């Protein structure tokens, strides 16, 4: 029986060293590659995105001796090639096709317990934002359609930044809020 390969500390350190000679830069690059691999698997509709990203990283680490000798260029591209193989294996492993997503699944009832818990956590998380960021979120997501476009232009002008910079700033605050809500729900459930 084939033994499963396990990522050891030594192989992980070698992987980081391959990514960058500077340990801090290597750690940042590792996180960046992992996060983006997860996103790519999510975008492909995979249900085990984190697991697939970790399998990709493990496989690269396992072959590192061979890769280092032959591969040139940005290591991220090598990860992408391996991710494609992992995805192919994932599709082959899935015996049954995924059941089609019903409208009920995609459009959860806002009154369910889970939604209510998440809403409570959102309220708490918004209060934890700095006053500046809280105001930005409340202002940015106001209004609908045409009014929203005009509103955001005015907001960007007030902040002295380009509209695209405002989009990115709002997106980052929103991502931090989502992370906060996730942690809060987990904590309250324990």
């Amino acid at each position, binding site marked *: 029986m084939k033994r499963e390969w396990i990522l050891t500390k030594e192989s992980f350190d070698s992987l980081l060293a391959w990514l960058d000679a500077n340990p801090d830069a290597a750690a940042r690059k590792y996180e960046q590659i992992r996060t983006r691999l997860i996103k790519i698997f999510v975008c492909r509709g995979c249900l085990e995105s984190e697991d697939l990203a970790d399998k990709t990283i493990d496989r690269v680490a396992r072959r590192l001796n061979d890769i280092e000798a032959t591969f040139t260029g940005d290591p991220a591209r090598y990860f992408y090639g391996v991710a494609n193989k992992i995805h192919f294996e994932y599709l082959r492993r899935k015996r049954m096709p995924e059941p089609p997503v019903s409208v009920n699944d995609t459009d959860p009832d806002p009154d369910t317990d889970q939604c209510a818990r998440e809403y409570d956590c959102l309220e708490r998380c918004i209060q934890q934002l700095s006053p500046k960021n809280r105001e930005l979120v409340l202002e940015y997501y106001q209004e609908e*359609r045409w009014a929203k476009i005009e509103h955001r232009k005015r907001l960007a002008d007030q902040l002295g930044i380009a509209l695209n910079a405002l989009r990115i700033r709002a997106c980052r605050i929103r991502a931090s809020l989502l992370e906060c809500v996730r942690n809060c729900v987990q904590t309250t459930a324990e």
Partner: protein
Amino acid sequence: MKSNTQQYQSIREYQLGQAASEDAARLEEQLLTDDELYQELLVVEDELVDQYLAGQLADSEKESFETYFLATPERREKLRFARNLKKYVSGNKAGENSSAGNTDFASESTAFAARALPQKRFWPWSNPVVSYSLIAAVVLVVTITTVVILRNLNSPPKGAGKVLVVELTPGLSRSNQETKQIIVPADTSNVELQLRVSNVAAYQTYRAILQTADGREISSQDGLHPDPASNDRMICSVPANLLTPSDYSLKLSGINQHGEYEDVARFYFRVTN
């Protein structure tokens, strides 16, 4: 190199599972190394969710959103989060309004006070003849003003600016041809976009949605009909003041016999100074 509008559209198609496999592969490989592209992907993802909740996705996009985009638990979590955020923001807005004295409690108190206090007279003058004369004068002024406004609305504007006519051909998103560049002179009031469509008679009615590079909707026009003077042209008129220097895309959809919108073509152009 793709323009912002083209990149935005590619990311959007990728997120909805509508991109061709080679385009998706190119985008994914770039995502791993290009920070700006990855950031844009995250922004577009949020915007798609918000547009879905606001009912702003076209029918084909809505279908892809429900069947493809929401297939993973991560994205369903994002949808719940966006719904809650929307609820919180609108509640907060209502809260701001209510802090000015419009809460249910405040309304109830006001109603109680109105019942308890003697009613004040509506007009401040003790002589009713003066009051009625003033009301009659106000009504007369309002009537004359309304007639003047209605007349002006029905007549062509005097001294209106020029109309800039621009011809656009579809489908430049995947080609290497340069995006059409438009300079809108300051005295232009309207830009008439003449859209080249191969089989314009395929639909009786069309809809045109004009968006900026970052996907913001600038204008939407329903009930457009093919230009009777041409068998391969649609005309869509846009107020010039909406077209500030930027990249734009215009999505043309036709209404089929079931009353559903079907994508017909996309037109890309850039407004420069």
